[in-house]
């Protein structure tokens, strides 16, 4: 959303798994900006590097993941921006959750099974706001749970005593308890029923209105994203191949991959259209195709696609600063 101020600027960001010869680059030179208050959707097929990017940005990648390049600049409201990649461990700890929180895919696995949910909630508050009195902490935790629709008497439950949907709500509540600027959500609802999924997302959107945080929302379900997010970035083979407002992307996608991806979803309403799917299989990180990673599966590929890597930029044909694409097809080559 042009004009809005950025809250997180990811620049030329690369992530490797392993070191030296065995290194596998799972995220390549990603540049992406999250603006204050928006929901940015990140889509792409399995293995395209969505989670890796999210974990990399918060430096939570498990070994052997290493960040091999780039910067992630965080803009605190009304303060100097700083690079998350340059923080020391202690600084990082203070940064986490207070500024950026994460909701993972499986809530059962994100909650420690042996602690009460109240303990886990209070832990966060205690770690970041040690001055707060225990009563105040408790009150805050209760408020937060109420906000996500969990009654205070479930505070002392253990994770296994809650249903999947409730656990996911607890996680969301926990993510918001410190009122961070950014909430990263990595497929937070894939394990849930569609009914439950819609309920939770509706609640989240409502909370965003109230608290004003930004969301980086990751999923491979494009139809969900189109409906839910302000902007969408499509990843393929570790790179962002297209970025646009969700409505624009849905109506008029520029990258052949996005196009095909959108055609893979059967629609529930409207006329039954023919679906084609995407032939071929996803690229292997160890042996990435040269040039555009999508060219072996692309119906429009031509010579240049297999030699040069397309850069992400505002396509000449559209000249709309709010969208960018990485493709060599005529008219999609960036201006300048």
């Amino acid at each position, binding site marked *: 959303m042009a004009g809005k101020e950025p809250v997180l600027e990811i*620049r*030329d960001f690369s992530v*490797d798994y392993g*070191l*030296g010869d065995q290194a596998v680059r799972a995220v390549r030179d990603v540049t992406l900006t999250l603006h204050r208050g928006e929901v940015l959707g990140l889509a792409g097929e399995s293995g395209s590097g969505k989670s890796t990017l999210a*974990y*990399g940005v918060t*430096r*939570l*990648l*498990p*070994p*052997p*993941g*290493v*960040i*091999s*390049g*780039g*910067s992630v*600049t965080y803009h*605190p409201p009304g*303060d*100097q*921006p*700083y*690079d998350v*990649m*340059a*923080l020391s*461990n*202690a*600084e*990082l700890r*203070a*940064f986490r959750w*207070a500024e950026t929180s994460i909701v993972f895919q499986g809530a059962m696995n994100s909650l420690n099974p042996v602690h009460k949910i109240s303990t886990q909630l209070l832990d966060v508050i205690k*770690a*970041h*706001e*040690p*001055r707060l009195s225990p009563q105040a902490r408790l009150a805050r935790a209760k408020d937060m749970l109420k906000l996500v629709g969990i009654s205070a008497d479930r505070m002392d439950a253990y994770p296994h005593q809650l249903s999947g949907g409730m656990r996911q709500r607890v996680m969301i509540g926990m993510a918001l308890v410190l009122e961070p600027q950014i909430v990263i959500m990595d497929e937070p609802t894939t394990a849930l029923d569609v009914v439950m999924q819609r309920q939770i997302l509706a609640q989240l959107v409502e909370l965003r209105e109230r608290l004003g945080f930004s969301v980086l929302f990751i999923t491979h379900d494009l139809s969900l994203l189109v409906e839910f997010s302000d902007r969408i970035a499509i990843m393929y083979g570790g790179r962002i191949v297209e970025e646009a407002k969700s409505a624009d992307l849905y109506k008029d996608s520029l990258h052949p991959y996005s196009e095909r991806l959108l055609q893979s979803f059967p629609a529930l309403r409207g006329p*039954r259209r*023919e*679906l*084609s*799917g995407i*032939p*071929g*299989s*996803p*690229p*292997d990180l*160890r*042996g990435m195709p040269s040039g555009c990673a999508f060219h072996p599966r692309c119906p429009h590929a031509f010579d240049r696609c297999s030699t040069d890597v397309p850069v992400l930029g505002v396509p000449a044909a559209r000249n709309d600063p709010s969208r960018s694409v990485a493709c060599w097809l005529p008219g999609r080559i960036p201006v300048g």
Partner: protein
Amino acid sequence: MSAPASTITAVTPDGPEVEAAPAKRRRLRFVANPKAATGLVVLAFFCLIAIIGPWIAPYDPSARSSDLIQPPSAQHWFGTTHLGQDIFSQVVVGTRGVMFVGLLAGIVATVLSVLIGVSSGFLGGAADEGLSALANVFLVIPALPLIIIVASTIPGAGDLMVALVIGFTSWAWGARVLRAQTLSLRRRDYVEAARATGESTWRIITVEILPNLTAIIASGFIGTVIFAVMSEITLAFIGISTISEWNWGTILFWAQSQQALAQGAWWWFVPAGLAIAVLGTALSLVNFGIDEFVSPRLRSSGHTRVRTKDGRTVRMRVGFTPVLTTSGKDAPVTPVIRTDEAKGTL
């Protein structure tokens, strides 16, 4: 209403060749684990000695000589006993008994644990209840005292008998692990799928389930071998089992009954003990290798330290991903951390 056929052909995957590693290599991959490799080499060495020991031993281990209680020398590498017997020969010849009992007990216990564990896990119901109760009882009843009691009361218990006694009393742990694993395998789709294809129960157990238990069975086998070796040596050492044949426990028994350490004859005592420890270590290493093979998380990767952009060395660890370099384009914004008092100290 139907999709064009062209779509279907287009879908035909001709994706990249996914690492075309031959299957065999995958199964033996755990040998590539340095721990497993070290363990296997040492183990192979002991096995070799067990086989050729009697031929390469420089002396008859029971033969007396006039060199009574001699410290190690060129003639007697590990010195001699109170009867002038060559300890090196005893250790070499004694390897066979140790390996024999260890392996046989391991085999017996493994076969029992597979039979009981897998059938209990697969059959379920009353059979499962009964068999797992049996396993639990054997698990809780202390094995070594039981072995001592049983071994001490069987007349003429030779190596074979000792191996059987150990084998018959130490299958329970493996059975329990296998049962749990079988229970989880039984629920796997591929077992259901095999059933739905029409495979017989017997074939499902032997061909579909058992191969997937290989690592656990192997690990249980190794564990039992360790236990059996220790038990056998213990029995020999406290003079309970028949010690007609030489083994390391017998050597220690003689050393102890002749008060070797009090006499200062450390050489009588140390080699056999070290041999046990080395064999035990080798077996444990193989087991670690298997464990790491099964659960790759346990593998301690070679590179755990990396160099960061400012020249520091940082450990790779959960929760704090190291940052290697910055792209030179934009100089990173100088870190300015809000030292907001309300947010606590940094």
